[in-house]
């Protein structure tokens, strides 16, 4: 058996009430621990896209995929560990610094290619996009400056090149008025 690692899955689902509940209920019932889960619209009407990060070995990953496909509203599942993938996470970090330390924090943000998007007399908000590691790195160096709040979106993932699009089955709804009418 292969060892458990964090894996990222992309799931296209029908945009209908209750679908998120079905997916999360599946994970709860089968004992998968979700590291992060994001859901949003896609370029196609009526289709939502989920990015799921969880711990799983090879077997568990295959069964997870099979279990997702058993949900009637799930259209297409991709285990990103099989292909080159871009994975990004976004964090907003509120740091409790006044005028004295502000410059130093902004310098650090530059190193991490993070942006300061709001400045108040006693605090500023940093926005950073990147892999989980990169965000952790920034958090580590900002910690001494007193982090007041932090929020993360969780990972979103996209396969590189056009591989994924080619893999999608023909049953995948086309971005036309046909689905909008359905």
């Amino acid at each position, binding site marked *: 058996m292969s060892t458990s690692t964090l894996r990222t899955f992309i799931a296209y*689902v029908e945009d209908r009430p*209750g679908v998120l509940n079905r997916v999360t*209920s599946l994970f709860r019932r089968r004992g998968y621990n979700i590291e992060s889960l994001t859901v949003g619209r896609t370029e196609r009407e009526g289709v939502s896209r989920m990015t799921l990060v969880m711990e799983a070995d090879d077997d568990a990953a*295959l069964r997870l995929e*099979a*279990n997702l496909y058993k949900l*009637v509203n799930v259209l*297409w599942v991709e285990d990103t560990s099989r292909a080159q993938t871009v994975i990004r996470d976004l964090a907003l970090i509120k740091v409790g610094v006044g005028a004295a330390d502000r410059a130093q924090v902004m310098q650090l943000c530059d190193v991490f290619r993070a942006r300061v998007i709001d400045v108040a007399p006693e605090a500023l908000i940093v926005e950073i996009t990147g892999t989980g590691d990169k965000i952790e790195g920034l958090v580590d160096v900002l910690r001494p400056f007193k982090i007041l709040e932090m929020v993360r979106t969780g990972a979103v993932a996209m396969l590189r090149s056009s591989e994924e699009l080619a893999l999608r089955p023909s049953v*995948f709804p086309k971005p036309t008025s046909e689905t909008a009418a359905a």
Partner: protein
Amino acid sequence: MRTATATTDSANAAPVLKSDGDSDAEPESVMRTGAQIVWEVLREEGVDTIFGYPGGCVMPMYDAMLDYPIRHVLVRHEQGAAHMADGFARASGRTGVCLATSGPGATNLVTGIATAMLDSVPMICITGQVPSHLLGSDAFQETDITGVTLPITKHNYLVTTAEEIAPTLREAFYVARSGRPGPVLVDITKDAQQASCEFVLEPPPVRLPGYRPELKARALDLERAIALIDAAERPVILAGHGIVKSEATELLRELVARTGIPVACTLLGLGGFPATDPLALGMMGMHGEAWVNKAIQEADLLIALGMRFDDRVTGNLKNYAPRAKKIHAELDPSEINKNVKVDVALVGDVKQTLASIVPNVATRKRAPWVAHIEALKGDTAVRDIQTMPHDGRLFAAHVMHDLWRITEGNALVVTDVGQHQMWEAQYYKHDHPRKLITSGGLGTMGFALPAALGARLAMPNEEVWVIVGDGGFQMTACELSTCAQEEAKINIAVINNGYLGMVRQWQEFFYDKRYSATPMKSPDFVKLAEAHGLTGIRVTRREEVAEAVKRARETPGTVVIDFRVEAEDSVYPMVAAGADLHDMIRRPVAVVPEKAAKETL
């Protein structure tokens, strides 16, 4: 469910089945209420019998029902409705339908739905729901039944408009019966039932872009499987429910005829291969014969067909069939490598898979292996209760054996859950599929009687027997009243030992004979039958069994036979939960009378 709030249902007396004549539009359509559309679609799907219980939020459907040619069976508890629809489906291969109102009516279905889910039974559950404007307000008899049943249905729907009813129900039937079948629940708000809309008579094709039930085993995997089969010296076929469901029994027989490979069945696979065939090994697993389990443990190849390596079948996974390569033919990809790691997975309908394998395997005999298995039987026959010296006492196994003999193995037997279920599986030899109906996956006590009534209505020409324990019988005995009202002919053999026998047996083996909450006092089942206007017979001695069975078969209407069997008999052999499959508890060679046994301990 029993009482409705003040509603104004009486106003819905629209004339039914009148075609709106002269519309020339391409798809012919008519105006119907949502409630009428439910029955229109059921009729279109070929449904002629449903099981249900009325209540406030299904009154529009019940009112409309009177104008449609449907047999409605009024159950005594909604759990019975679900089990009846289940039994109807298992006996006939059709899709069973049950109907219940919102709230408690719907939640009472839950046990029946879970039972159907674990045994992959195609079933449609229609529930009424409070009017859509009250959804989420904790209204009277409101339950979030789609939420409740989400993990125990194959899929479910909440319908809030009349327009959605027809497409949803059609989709529900398609999902329930296709692929790996299962229960689908459709929850319909009362206002959707009352509203009217156009009903298109010609059903459009179901469009489910993400649902792909048609899977086929890959050619490369089929080749590998065939090579493994040809090379195997000690193979065993493990036949499961999938053989019965996909109607692959003929192909399985052909496979065995060509390859000479013996067949062991799961509980739900019994009947998938003729039990009286010389290569039939009978049931495997926890209560399979010791020599059958030994054969599996010694095998060099397991060919698993439409089964899922349940823990009751494998025992301790670490030491399961350690020398065997494994081929797994299974429709549901999520079952592959779930419990047992396999060498070749054939994902697809098992009938299609067999059709690809059978003509391509080498014809050969496996006489040494078959002879070896025969030798593994050892003293099994000596330990068999049938061959033990007769001392006048009545054992449950006697009842099963005599019943099998007298009905010539042709009855449709519906069993409940517990000791009697295992004894039936051991002693009633099923040669044909769909002749044993039992709750395998969920192990639902109270299943047998309602499921048998469903089976009876699906198969009017079968001889239907219920075999049930005194505990399970009392869980749904209220359905005797339904049997009486429907004038259904069912024979009920109550295996009455005064205990919750299977739990008692575990307490005997694993809890130092501390009988916690297992002794059970029952009513007089003969009088209970008579109170329903039915026939009751009591049997206390083996000599009386045959006569009672004959009398039951000849008596019109449902008959209850109260078999007062040996109180503390156990099901042998037995693999303790989690133990290795070959590590079995065997029946003592002589049945020592209870008193003497105590003295020697």
